[in-house]
């Protein structure tokens, strides 16, 4: 498969709550040397059903095969894949910065304003900036701020909802019958 065909996909997996499932799902990627770009687990819109959101850089032929392997797991209800055009997604970044810089470097205040970042907390020693958006926006902000020195930085996994409807509830309904 040529690398041209590769693109970022999100894999959304609806599952029963189960301790061992993360292990099972990550093993499917690991065995095939597929690097997971990010992974997020959370409750879903349905009570008792969890949702994994995994981002991978792959081609479509292979992502279909991976989806087959994922859906084959007993506790997986349904898995979907989407490219980034088919979803609405957010990533957030947290930046911890020395408080004195906020006053000494007027530039920082501009960055905050222009980037629509939010100040989460401020104290004498440091302040925390939070920025949500696309990965590039967060990386851009990191690049701007790093010139002044960042005490700590972290970026979350991607979370997403799809533009089209995901019929999990009706699917579960049909499984129950």
């Amino acid at each position, binding site marked *: 498969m040529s690398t041209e065909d590769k693109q970022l996909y999100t894999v959304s997996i609806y*599952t*029963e*709550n*189960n*301790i*061992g499932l993360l*292990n*099972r799902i990550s*093993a499917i990627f690991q*065995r095939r040397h597929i690097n997971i770009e990010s992974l997020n687990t959370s409750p879903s819109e349905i009570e*008792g059903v969890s949702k994994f959101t995994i981002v991978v850089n792959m081609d479509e032929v292979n992502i*279909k*095969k991976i989806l*087959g*392997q994922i*859906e*084959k797991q*007993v*506790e*997986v*209800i349904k898995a979907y894949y989407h490219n980034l055009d088919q979803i609405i997604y957010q990533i957030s970044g947290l930046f911890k910065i020395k408080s004195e810089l906020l006053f000494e470097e007027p530039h920082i205040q501009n960055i905050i304003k222009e980037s629509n970042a939010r100040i989460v907390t401020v104290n004498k020693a440091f302040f925390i900036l939070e920025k949500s958006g696309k990965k590039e926006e967060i990386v851009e902000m990191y690049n701007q701020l790093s010139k002044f020195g960042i005490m700590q930085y972290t970026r979350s996994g991607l979370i997403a909802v799809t533009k089209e409807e995901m019929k999990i509830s009706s699917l*579960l309904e049909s*499984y*129950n019958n």
Partner: protein
Amino acid sequence: MEIQTIKSQGKTNKATERISGSEAVVRCLIAEGVDILYGYPGGAIMPVYDELYKYHGKIHHVLTRHEQGATHAAQGYARISGKVGVAIATSGPGATNLITGIADAQIDSTPMVCITGQVASHLLGSDAFQETDIVGISTPVTKWNCQITKAADIPKVMAKAFYIARSGRPGPVLVDITKDAQFEEFDFLYEKCTHVRSYNPLPTTDIIKVKEAANLINAAKKPLIVWGQGVILGKAEEELKAVLEKAGIPAAWTILGASAIPTSHPLNVGMVGMHGNYAPNVLTNECDLLIAIGMRFDDRVTGSLSTYAKQAKVIHFEIDPAEIDKNVKSDVAVLGDAKKSLEELLPFLEEKSHTDWHQKFKDLYQIEYDKVIKNDLYPTKEGLTMAEVLKEINSQSEGKAAIVTDVGQHQMVACRYADFNVSKSNITSGGLGTMGFGLPAAIGAKMAAPDREVISISGDGGYQMTIQELGTIFQQKAAVKVVVLNNDFLGMVRQWQQLFFDKRYASTEMVNPNFVAIAEGYYIKARKVTKREELAEAVAEMMQSKEAYFLEVCVEKEDNVFPMIPTGASVSDIRLE
């Protein structure tokens, strides 16, 4: 953990009974129809063994000589009976010793439930004595697994374990039970599991796809069926026979599909794959339609994928959606159970005979016969061939014996030359190629089908990987016939060294013990054959024996198995020499 996914069967006004977790385990097994289980005791599973002692007479525990032997025996039991095989072991080393058999059952889709003891729940994660994370270790090689820390979860988890192991595409399940959960008392009530919300084992057969498949089959000039174990697991032998007879289609089998259609059937054109028959391999690349039924296009079957059946349209009958287009892209995929799909297919098929196309198979068979088969079966040299032994077994068993093989040259020879006239007669480790599988698997097979002749055929190498199971044969009085085809070599590896490594025989020569003396040490009747003249009589003595019998046949040391598709080559480039 919470199991909210099980739909209970019928009404639940049955009374509960207060019993211990360990008793519950045994009661669950009995409720699932388990009459035999294979295992090895140890600290963390002792409470369950204590209950097995009390329930003696209702359920028979077979003490193997190694936990790996327990899994292979459970596999042999499952493969010949179609029921779930059960193995049980203690925590730590007992549990890790199960892994090879579990991996084997996973890749060969064998229904098996493994029960392991675990350290008490308050010790989990503390590196306690004989603590291993067996759930973590077994995750990639199980269909499902689960750890139980509360007695109350035992009935539901056990029910789910059996349901998952046997339904859909079968596979191994591991249930790990902490020692405190085994001791704990609770109100027991067993209900079989018939449904797990997130699990759809049997995709419904789409009649539109069936009709599309029928149209392709009716239009084909040179169709070829390749069937796999899905036919046996789906109990679809009769349906397959009806389909190939009506549509006049030559049919070949994968190693695990062997015996679903009798060897003697005129439309049975032999085995595909690395050491399969010449005609079906070559003609895979000439057919205009390839009909795959319950098989998964393993690389040992397809050779190089980029040149595999490229000229043909492909129909894939398959129960596991993940297998569709995994290795070979299909033009029509019919999901579902083989029995149902083939049953629905039959009325849409036109009667055909494809005489010219059949002639091609016969012509190529003749080439294989002249170059390979004749020399294997009627050698002119002094040394015995493995094929001769199979020929003798065929004639004396009328092709009705269950042949349980180990892994290596003898396995390929057995699959190529054994007559399989009864379904479920070829029990072998296909996907994992596990040396040491044969002897313990034969024990399980014999115990599940005591009325059948069960013949274990091993090489001198693999035999010694689980040779200690002779002790199990002796203790259980299992009337297994054990044949070792001794070439004093790890023959299959030696063959590769000869062909691809300029005969550098690195660590493949075996200096072997007195096998007869070892068998006799276990009080098993034993005999060694070195000459052709003795063979028929020795096989007769073995077949007539009512008890276990050991037969060592010393065969030609450096024979090779042909035909052969070298790794990475195309099926049509199969070599005859």
